[in-house]
């Protein structure tokens, strides 16, 4: 058996599989079958709703649950206040939903539920999902920018005090760096989540194949890999939080550009 190729395929976990077949799920030639990705988005939404609804008690002396929810809302509130100022208050609902949705999705995907046979699907490890989230943020920036400033919004691409001869060079550079924002925003979250999960699966294949190859390999390769997996899992929880925070932070920075130009 030791000569058989590795049976752990690190990319298999990202397979999108329709639940309950693809029959009768066609609209205008497009298949919209209910996939495991959609299932876990629904699970995330339900859990998030329960979490927030449980904290909306408005008691003067908050209990533990209300305290937990208010810590998150206060955190987002402070972040928007610091980055955008007073006008930032009206973006709290959007940025809070965005942050919590990504955070819950990242953490749910890390849950070791595979032990009991339920395989969590990290939908933030797919570019389509993070791409849509990034496009939502970016369209808010564009809509707010053009709504508030009209065509003066283009002065965002010409920083203050640019010498006149430099403008033809600076303008396209700033325009490109502005236009790739949704792309880099989506790419960062998607790759960070995917890389972490691939790394965990590669290490797990070391554990499985090493232990299958005999007790010596199991001790020499399997055990250190398993210890490393535990450490990397802790790191992944940290990354899940940081990536959600960075997504929300960059969204608020981009909204700040739209609100105040430079």
């Amino acid at each position: 058996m030791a000569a058989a190729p590795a049976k752990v395929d690190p990319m298999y976990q990202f397979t999108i599989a329709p639940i309950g077949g693809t029959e009768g799920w066609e609209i205008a030639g497009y298949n919209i079958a209910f996939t495991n990705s959609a299932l876990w988005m629904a699970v995330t939404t339900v859990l998030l709703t329960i979490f927030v609804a449980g904290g909306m008690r408005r008691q003067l002396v908050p209990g533990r649950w209300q305290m937990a929810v208010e810590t998150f809302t206060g955190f987002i509130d402070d972040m928007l206040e610091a980055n955008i100022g007073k006008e930032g208050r009206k973006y709290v609902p959007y940025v809070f939903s965005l942050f919590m949705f990504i955070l819950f999705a990242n953490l749910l995907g890390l849950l070791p539920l595979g032990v009991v046979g339920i395989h969590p699907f990290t939908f933030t490890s797919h570019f389509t999902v993070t791409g849509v989230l990034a496009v939502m943020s970016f369209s808010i920036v564009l809509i707010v920018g053009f709504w508030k400033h009209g065509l003066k919004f283009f002065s965002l691409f010409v920083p203050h005090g640019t010498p006149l001869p430099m403008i033809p060079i600076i303008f396209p550079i700033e325009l490109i760096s502005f236009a790739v924002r949704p792309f880099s925003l989506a790419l960062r979250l998607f790759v960070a989540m995917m890389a972490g999960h691939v790394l965990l699966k590669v290490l797990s294949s070391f554990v499985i194949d090493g232990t299958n190859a005999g007790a010596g390999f199991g001790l020499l390769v399997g055990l250190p890999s398993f210890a490393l997996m535990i450490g990397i899992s802790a790191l992944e929880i940290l990354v899940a939080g940081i990536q959600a925070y960075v997504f929300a932070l960059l969204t608020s920075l981009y909204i700040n550009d739209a609100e105040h130009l430079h």
Partner: protein
Amino acid sequence: MEVEAAKLVGAGLAAIGAGMAAIGVGNVFGSFLESALRNPGAADGQQGRLFIGFAAAELLGLLAFVVAMILIFVA
């Protein structure tokens, strides 16, 4: 060299980019800690900038990872 081998070599070379990004991220956090210990009072106010710098440095490493993935699975 065979095309398949060249792809794998290229993907391996892309890992250098990940290591470079590790230097960058370490630099960001290291400089932050260094100055935060000198002036702890100002440290909390700069946390947002810390993570912006972290995100910018990390993105380039992730791009290297994407290049490796494209070489192995797509190209």
